[in-house]
C-alpha cells in the first residue's frame, strides 16, 4: 500500500479485490499520488468545480426551520445546488480527470438512487468518454427519472437483475466489467467504499464540502459550529463534510444511517449499528451479514442508502467514537422530507431527509445560540414519484 495514502483506517480499509484489478489499483494509486501534488491538476479540478459544477455551493441559514424546531441555528450546506443536483458530481469530475490523465477512454459506474450514475454520465458527456452505468433493475424502476436522464446524456444503462437488484448487485457487476476491461476503463466508484485507494480518493474529492462549509461559517460567524450532520449510505457526502472538522474536537459530528422498517435483518441499512467486521467489494469494513458471513440484503426508503456496507473510514470513526451515528427509520425520513419542503422551501433528497431527522434532535438538545450545519447532499426531485407512492400507501 502507498506510503502517502492511508490504505487502512484503523483496522478497516485495505485492498481485498480480485487479483486482476491489482495492477489497475496500483496504477490509480500512483497516478493519484502524483496528481495530488500537481498544480495543473488542482487548477483543472478547481476550474471545473467552479465553472461547471457551480462551486462554492452556498451555506444557507435556514431561518424558518430554526424557528420551527426551536433549538440551535440551522445552516444548510447546499450540495443540492450543484450541477446535477447532488454532491456526487464533485467526485465524478475529479475521477474523470484522473481517468483522462491515465489515458482511459471508457468510464463505468454503479448507482443506487441514480445521482452518481447521473453525475458520471454527465462528465462522460462533457469529456467525450464512453460511459456505462450499472443500476439495479429495482432502482431503475423506482428512480426512473434519473435512469432516463442517464440515457439522455448518452450513457448506456445496464440494469442488474441478480439478487435484490439494487446497489450491492450493481456494484458487483461494475467490478466484473472493470475486471474484463481494466486496460481501457476507469471505474468511477461512487462512494467512499471499495478497495484502496478509492475510499481515500473519494474522501479527498468530497472534502471540498466540509472545507467550504467551515470557511463560509467562520467568515459569517467568526467561530466554528457546535455540530455537523450528514447522512451515511456508503458515506461520501458525510466523509466529505466531516473531514475538515475531524480535528476540531469542539465540533460534535453526527451521521444518519437508514434504520428502514425496523431492526430485523433485511429491513434496514444500519451498517454502523448492526454491522459486523467483514470483507465486501474490496474493502474490510462493517457489513450487515448473517451468522455465516453471507451478506444480508439491505433496505431503505432511499435507494441511495440501501447498501449493506459502509465506507471503511466511517467504520473507523464509529469505532473511535469521533462520530455519533444514529438510525433514522423510513417513516421518520419521510416526515422530515415533507417538513423541510414545507417549512424551508427546499425539497431534500430522501437520503438527506435522514440527516434532517438527526439534526432536529441534535438542534433541540443543543438549544438556542448554538449552530448546526446539515450537509444537504442532494435535491429530492428524483424522489417525488416514490414519495407520492409511499404517501398513497400511508393514507390507505
Amino acid at each position, binding site marked *: 500500500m502507498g506510503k502517502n495514502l492511508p490504505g487502512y483506517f484503523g483496522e478497516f480499509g485495505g485492498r481485498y479485490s480480485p*487479483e486482476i484489478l491489482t495492477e489497475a489499483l496500483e496504477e490509480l494509486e500512483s497516478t493519484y499520488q502524483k496528481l495530488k501534488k500537481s498544480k495543473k491538476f488542482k487548477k483543472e479540478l478547481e476550474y471545473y468545480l467552479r465553472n461547471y459544477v457551480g462551486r462554492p455551493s452556498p451555506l444557507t441559514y435556514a431561518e424558518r426551520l430554526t424557528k420551527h424546531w426551536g433549538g440551535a441555528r440551522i445552516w444548510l450546506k447546499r450540495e443540492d445546488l450543484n450541477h446535477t443536483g447532488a454532491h456526487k458530481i464533485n467526485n465524478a469530475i475529479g475521477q474523470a480527470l484522473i481517468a483522462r490523465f491515465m489515458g482511459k477512454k471508457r468510464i463505468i459506474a454503479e448507482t443506487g438512487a441514480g445521482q452518481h450514475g447521473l453525475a458520471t454520465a454527465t462528465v462522460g458527456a462533457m469529456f467525450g468518454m464512453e460511459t456505462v452505468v450499472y443500476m439495479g433493475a429495482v432502482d431503475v424502476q423506482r428512480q426512473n427519472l434519473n435512469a432516463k436522464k442517464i440515457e439522455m446524456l448518452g450513457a448506456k444503462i445496464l440494469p442488474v437483475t441478480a439478487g435484490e437488484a439494487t446497489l450491492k448487485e450493481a456494484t458487483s457487476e461494475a467490478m466484473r466489467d472493470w475486471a*474484463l*476491461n481494466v486496460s481501457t476503463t476507469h471505474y468511477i466508484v461512487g462512494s467512499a467504499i471499495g478497495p484502496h485507494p478509492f475510499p481515500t480518493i473519494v474522501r479527498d474529492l468530497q472534502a471540498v464540502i466540509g472545507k467550504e462549509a467551515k470557511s463560509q461559517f467562520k467568515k459569517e460567524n467568526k467561530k466554528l459550529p457546535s455540530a455537523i450532520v450528514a447522512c451515511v449510505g456508503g458515506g461520501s457526502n458525510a466523509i466529505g463534510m466531516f473531514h475538515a472538522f475531524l480535528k476540531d474536537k469542539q465540533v460534535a459530528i453526527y451521521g444518519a444511517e437508514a434504520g428502514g422498517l425496523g431492526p430485523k435483518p433485511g429491513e434496514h441499512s444500519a451498517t454502523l449499528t448492526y454491522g459486523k*467486521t467483514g*470483507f465486501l467489494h474490496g474493502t474490510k469494513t462493517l*457489513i450487515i451479514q448473517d*451468522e455465516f458471513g453471507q*451478506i444480508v440484503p439491505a433496505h431503505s426508503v432511499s435507494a441511495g442508502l440501501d447498501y449493506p456496507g459502509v465506507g471503511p473510514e466511517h467504520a473507523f470513526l464509529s469505532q473511535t467514537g469521533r462520530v455519533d451515528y444514529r438510525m433514522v427509520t423510513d417513516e421518520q425520513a419521510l416526515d422530515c422530507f415533507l417538513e423541510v419542503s414545507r417549512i424551508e422551501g427546499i425539497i431534500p433528497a430522501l437520503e438527506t431527509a435522514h440527516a434532517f431527522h438527526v439534526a432536529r434532535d441534535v438542534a433541540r438538545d443543543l438549544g438556542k445560540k448554538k449552530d448546526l450545519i446539515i450537509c444537504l447532499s442532494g435535491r429530492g426531485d428524483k424522489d417525488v414519484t416514490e414519495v407520492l407512492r409511499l404517501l398513497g400507501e400511508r393514507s390507505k
Partner: protein
Amino acid sequence: MSKIKSLFDSAKFKSAFIPYFTLGDPNYNDSIEFGKTILDNGADILELGIPFSDPVADGPVIQRAVARSLKNSFSFDEIFRVTKAIHDHKPETPLVYLTYFNPIYHCGITKFLDRAKESGIVGLVIPDLPFDTAESETLFRELKVRDMDLIHLVTPASEKKRIQALAKTSSGFIYYVTSFGVTGERREFSLDLKERIRFLKETIQLPICAGFGISTPDQANQISQYADGIIIGSAIQRIIEENGSDRSKVVSALADYISKIRTSIS
C-alpha cells in the same frame, strides 16, 4: 509434504485436470453424487465452491449456481458434511475449497481450517484475498502448520515483481487466470498465454494450472501442452444447471464430460 505437492511430484499425468463445482446446487445431497461422479471419471484435484452471496470474480453461470445454492439453508455443517462424503469416496484425490474470504473470516480462520482439514480439504483458493494482506499471511501460516496449501491467483496483468513476491506465500500450485474478466466459457485465449505460463514456471517453482474460460476438450488439450493443470468450472456448472432437476441426467452428463476432458489432456 502436502498432498498436492506429492500429486504433482508423482507426475502420473501430462497435465492435471481440476474441475470445479459449487456445493449445494441444486441441493447438498446431489452435490455428493456430483462430486463422486467427477472423482470417478478422472479429476486429479477437485475444487469445491463454498457459495458466497457476492461472488465478484465469477461470471453469470457460477453466479446463478451460487444463487441456487443459497436458496438452500446454508451452514458450514452442511458444507463439511458434504465435503467429507465426497472425500471418503476417493480419499486419495486432493480436495480444495474455492470461496471468498468473508465466510472464512466469519467462521474464524483456525476453526474453519480445522474442520476443513477433518473433512478432507488440503488447500484453499480465495479470489478476493490478495497475498499482500495481513489476513493472507495469517492464513498461509495456519495452513502450513496443517500441511495444507494456499493457492494464489496470478493474472495476465500481474507484473514480475508482484509474482516474485507472491511466490513466498504460495504453495500447492498457481492458479493462472488465462484472460481478463470473470469466470465463464470463452472461445479464444490471449496469444501470449503460452509465453506467460512459461514465464511463470521460470519465476515460481510451483505447478502452473490454467483456469477461467476453458470449456472444450480441444481447448484443454491445447493448453495442456504447456500448463501443468487445467481448471474448468463454468462448463461443469452449466451441465448441472441445464440438467439440475434430474440428478441421474446430471450424473451421466458429468461423467461423459469429465472423461472426455481427462482423455484430451492425457
